[in-house]
């Protein structure tokens, strides 16, 4: 076998290996989805979406759970979005390369890898006890905002970095200040990427149960929260609760609730894909 034949064989082998690796993930996901859908899809109807929790699996619904999840989503977005983007702009556009900014950067990257339960404990001490908020929506949203903030900051920086240097130089050449350049040129050009990052971060937050249980989110809430100061529950907690019940009918409920949670996640990811696509079409440098 000549050298080039050997190389080609290696090439082929890696290709097959790569396909295999790709399929492991996809097949596992497919099995999971099919299993959940078979188990739960028959349970989803209007009553399931609009009923309160109940001891009778057949009458129990997820109204307060999905309402809580939407509340948490919107509040977390409102908190994490401006903070994360401002921090990202500062680090990318304003901060000089000093030891301090290096230190900040390393820490933000590290924070992105901290387990979510740790954020729950932090939220419990900081928001629930020290700020005396109690286990309310606002405390939950603040906790999850901390959880997704590092991801928002990192993706904001990546999106801003992708704006070509020449755009800034052109703006400066016309006499614009740094703020004018950022506001009128850099942000509009990168907002699609930033939003994509924020939404993907939110779809991580939407599946969290542990940090919210720690801060005192409830399991049985017979009313839809009407303000950020209300107690709440979320879909992952309801799912977790149902999977630990002895009666098999609750497992069906859990599967149905998982489908709803997946739909919310897919919807968020769909919005992210759409925004990225739209921006790619719009920008013609």
């Amino acid at each position: 076998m000549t050298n080039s034949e050997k190389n080609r064989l290696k090439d082929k082998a890696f290709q097959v290996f790569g396909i295999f690796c790709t399929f492991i993930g996809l097949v596992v996901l497919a099995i999971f989805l099919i299993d959940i859908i078979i188990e739960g899809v028959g349970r989803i109807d209007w009553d399931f979406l609009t009923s309160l929790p109940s001891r009778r699996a057949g009458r129990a619904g997820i109204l307060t759970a999905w309402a809580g999840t939407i509340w948490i989503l919107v509040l977390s977005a409102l908190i994490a979005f401006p903070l994360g983007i401002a921090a990202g702009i500062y680090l990318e556009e304003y901060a000089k390369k000093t030891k301090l900014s290096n230190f900040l950067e390393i820490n933000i990257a590290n924070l992105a890898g901290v387990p979510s339960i740790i954020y729950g404990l932090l939220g419990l001490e900081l928001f629930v006890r020290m700020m005396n908020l109690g286990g309310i929506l606002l405390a939950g949203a603040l906790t999850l905002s901390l959880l997704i903030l590092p991801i928002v900051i990192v993706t904001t920086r990546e999106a801003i970095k992708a704006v070509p240097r020449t755009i800034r130089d052109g703006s400066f050449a016309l006499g614009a200040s740094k703020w004018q350049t950022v506001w009128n040129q850099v942000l509009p050009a990168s907002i699609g990427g930033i939003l994509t990052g924020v939404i993907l971060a939110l779809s991580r937050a939407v599946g969290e149960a542990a940090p919210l249980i720690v801060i005192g989110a409830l399991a049985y809430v017979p009313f839809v929260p009407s303000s950020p100061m209300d107690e709440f529950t979320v879909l992952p907690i309801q799912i977790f609760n149902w999977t630990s019940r002895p009666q098999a009918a609750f497992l069906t409920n859990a599967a149905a609730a998982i489908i709803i949670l997946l739909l919310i996640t897919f919807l968020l990811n769909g919005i992210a894909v759409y925004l990225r696509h739209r921006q790619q079409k719009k920008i013609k440098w």
Partner: protein
Amino acid sequence: MLQLSFSRFKLSAAIVLGASLAFTSCGGNSQEGGSDMSGSIAIDGSSTVYPVTEAVAEEYRAEAPDVKVTVGVSGTGGGMKKFTRGEIDIVNASRSMNASEAQTASENGISYVQLSVAYDGLTVVVHPSNDWVKDITVAELKKMWEPEAQGTITHWNQIRPEWPDQEIHLYGAGVESGTYDYFTEAIVGKSHSSRGDFTASEDDNVLVQGVSTDPLALGFFGYAYYEENKNKLKAIPVDNGTGPVLPSLETVKDGSYAPLSRALFLYISSKAVAKPEVVDFINFYLDNAGDLSEEVGYIRMPDNIYNEQKQKFEQFATGAATANQQ
């Protein structure tokens, strides 16, 4: 798109807010009767007791729709922490309050009453193909679960010589649960003390899955989980010296299934009973706990025990009321 869905959401939130304001303003603050009660009751604690409390809270909504009852599941330990800090009204507990929790409560000036609301029978189970275990004594359970067993008691024949020379695989409640505390107290003799090398889970369904797929397994969990999975598990009669007894509705209720029958508890603080809605809720709870606990898979207590609990609560409530007035 995000913008759009958000503004729509704000609209519906405003409607809900308006509606709930309209509702709450109707509720009076009257002392007597059930239907015109209002206010809120915060409950947290054991996930084992949760199904009973959830069922009662659900029924109570029909009785007093303006009382907001919320129930959390942060575990007996987590619930006790909040209770002894005065953060909640009622704690669901699958074990009694321990000494350090009682101390925190008294430091924070919180007095309380303990009520039993239902029974559960911790069931010892093996794989259905296991044909050698016909019964088991409390001493044998202790031998396999005590801390000294770790690493040394690894085979069935070490527990009883006629059992096979095969490995034994143990499955039990997670160490943070009240179930674990109760089991170790009843079997090992010391709460929260056992060998560490067993498969532990807070989720009893995981234990059911484990024991039902492992021919060498022995595990324990709540009676409801056995009842729902009878076809893939085998329950073992437990012998406390008076002969082997299988857990069942009758043997748990009459106390002959000992020492693994346990009561599920509520703790109510003196501050909470100052709220008329809490008193009303607890009386409703004790009136309905028998039927509802059976419905969710637990075992009803005898009627006279429920009456005792009611008397105990009434005494506590009047005592707390006079203490509050002084």
